């Protein structure tokens, strides 16, 4: 009977994951979908605790420890998730993903060490689960560190070469462990753990910061596969379906993100990004940027008919979304038509900007996607670029030698005037120069985005 309840709960859990993912991909139902999947997860977990029996028919023991661990995890997870700023969301996802990967790796280790077996299927699954889980864990931690600014990029083609050798080595090691288990014996599991962790670190290290969302999405699907392998280990249907669903959905999501940036997945992983940016500044001669004062910028906007704001990560870092909304509302009161032009990969993750601006109560119809905005730009009087860089770099369209060549951009250089708000002349996340800043119609407005927007608002108030 208890087995029946367990299996029914797992079935319900699997269905809730499928429906949840489906609902998550539509704006109106997304929130319900998330809650549905969470409910299914709760059912599956509780059913496991109370109804799971091993082959000998024994129920789950060590209940105090299990509940203590769940208590600690729930408390910490809830606190972290509630406290994190919206701007730090991508790092958070990466961190939680790493936790799942580590969990999968540990399961494989314990299973292997406490159930010695020579069964090929068992060994292969345990080793693969260990490897994928560990890579996902250490890779996610590096991605977290990079997005949080704790770890710098380290681009080197030698590392990439070494990585491929290392990967081949790991797979060979797994082969040995599976087909002649006595050759190395039990220590193999620890060797495998260490080399997989190293591989995960080196795998993410050379990948440019601009590609980080793609990497997180990829590692996310890795963890899904690791979870599914765990399901194989325990003949557990809900782990299997949940893991595989995330594995395949995550892979497709990764591909969709790559398409949004017009970057083939393979070149994200194996090719290098940045470095060849010298061509960006071409055109010869000393290049000088022109600056604009806050007052002039305010006047320019106030007397424009149509203004478009292009937000980027700078806006997020400065926590300027609320001030930006104030600015946009002030202009609106003066009869200026203001819209936001959102590049699909603005910020650090697709959709990141939408979340941030929604947090500041910007009405939805004002957020225009790149395809809608580009045709309107020639008739737009002023474009204000707030902390964006690569997504407005004309080199993506004009300079075949640029590393971002081919990425669709917001064509701000078609507008009549461009004001670029930046903290400094620093390069964008992709590390390439931007010829937009040197154009005749471009004016630079240096300073912290929140600060500058605040000043613009008070200027507008005085008019």
């Amino acid at each position, binding site marked *: 009977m208890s087995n029946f309840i367990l299996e029914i709960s797992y079935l319900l*859990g699997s269905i809730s994951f499928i429906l949840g*993912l489906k609902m*998550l991909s*539509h*704006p109106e139902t*997304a*929130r319900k979908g*998330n*809650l549905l999947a*969470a409910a299914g*997860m709760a059912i*599956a*977990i509780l059913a*496991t*605790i109370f109804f799971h029996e091993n082959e000998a028919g024994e129920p789950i023991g*060590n209940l105090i*420890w*299990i509940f203590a*661990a*769940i208590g600690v*995890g729930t408390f*910490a*997870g*809830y606190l972290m998730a509630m406290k994190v700023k*919206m701007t730090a*969301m*991508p790092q958070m*996802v990466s961190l*939680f993903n790493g*936790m*799942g990967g580590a*969990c999968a790796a540990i*399961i494989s*280790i*314990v299973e292997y060490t406490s159930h010695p077996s020579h069964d090929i*299927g068992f060994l292969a699954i345990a080793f693969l689960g260990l490897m994928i889980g560990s890579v996902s864990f250490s890779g996610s931690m590096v991605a977290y560190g990079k997005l949080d600014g704790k770890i710098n990029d380290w681009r080197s083609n030698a590392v990439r070469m070494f990585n491929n050798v290392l990967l081949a080595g790991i797979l060979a090691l797994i082969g040995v462990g599976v087909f002649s288990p006595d050759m190395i014996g039990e220590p193999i599991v620890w060797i495998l753990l260490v080399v997989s962790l190293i591989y995960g670190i080196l795998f993410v290290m050379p990948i440019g910061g601009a590609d980080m969302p793609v990497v997180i999405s990829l590692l*996310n699907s890795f*963890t899904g596969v*690791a*979870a*599914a392998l765990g399901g194989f*280990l*325990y003949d557990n249907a*809900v*782990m*299997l379906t949940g*893991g*595989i*669903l995330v594995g*395949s959905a995550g892979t497709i*999501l990764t591909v*969709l993100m790559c398409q949004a940036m017009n970057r083939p997945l393979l070149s994200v992983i194996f090719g290098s990004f940045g470095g060849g940016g010298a061509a960006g500044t071409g055109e010869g001669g000393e290049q000088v940027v022109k600056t604009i004062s806050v007052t002039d910028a305010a006047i320019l906007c106030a007397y424009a008919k149509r203004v478009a704001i292009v937000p980027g990560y700078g806006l997020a870092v400065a926590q300027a979304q609320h001030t930006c909304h104030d600015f946009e509302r002030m202009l609106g009161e003066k009869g200026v038509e203001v819209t936001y032009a959102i590049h699909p990969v603005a910020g650090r*993750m*697709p*959709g990141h900007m939408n*979340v941030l601006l*929604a947090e500041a*109560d910007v*009405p939805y119809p004002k957020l225009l*996607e790149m395809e809608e905005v580009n045709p309107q730009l020639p008739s737009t009087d002023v474009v204000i670029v707030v902390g964006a860089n690569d997504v407005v770099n004309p080199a993506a369209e004009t300079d075949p030698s640029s590393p971002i060549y081919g990425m669709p951009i917001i064509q701000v250089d078609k507008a009549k005037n461009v004001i670029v708000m930046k903290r400094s002349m620093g390069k964008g996340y992709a590390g390439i120069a931007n010829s937009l800043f040197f154009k005749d119609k471009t004016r630079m407005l240096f300073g912290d985005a929140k600060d500058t927007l605040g000043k613009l608002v008070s200027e507008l108030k005085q008019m």
Partner: protein
Amino acid sequence: MEELISFFIENKEFIYVIILSIFLGVEVISNVPAILHTPLMSGANAIHGVVIIGAIIVMGHASPDNILAIGLGFVAVVLGTLNVVGGFVVTNRMLEMFKKKK
């Protein structure tokens, strides 16, 4: 070779489930608008927290004198819970932002 064949025969239901789930995952996700990429990734991230079930099983059937299994199992359950709870709460927070506008 024989071992491979018997592995396949023994696990053929699971292999079916895997293949069908792969197609299902692809099907369910296609047509998602770009603005939902981040919440969707985050939601999927929470779902792969099902590994926690494996961690619970490891811990629940470890004999009390197996310190390694209990200790590692404890860590695994904590990490898995972090993944599940944190993942769903973060996703919910993101989606709340979308909700209140009209």
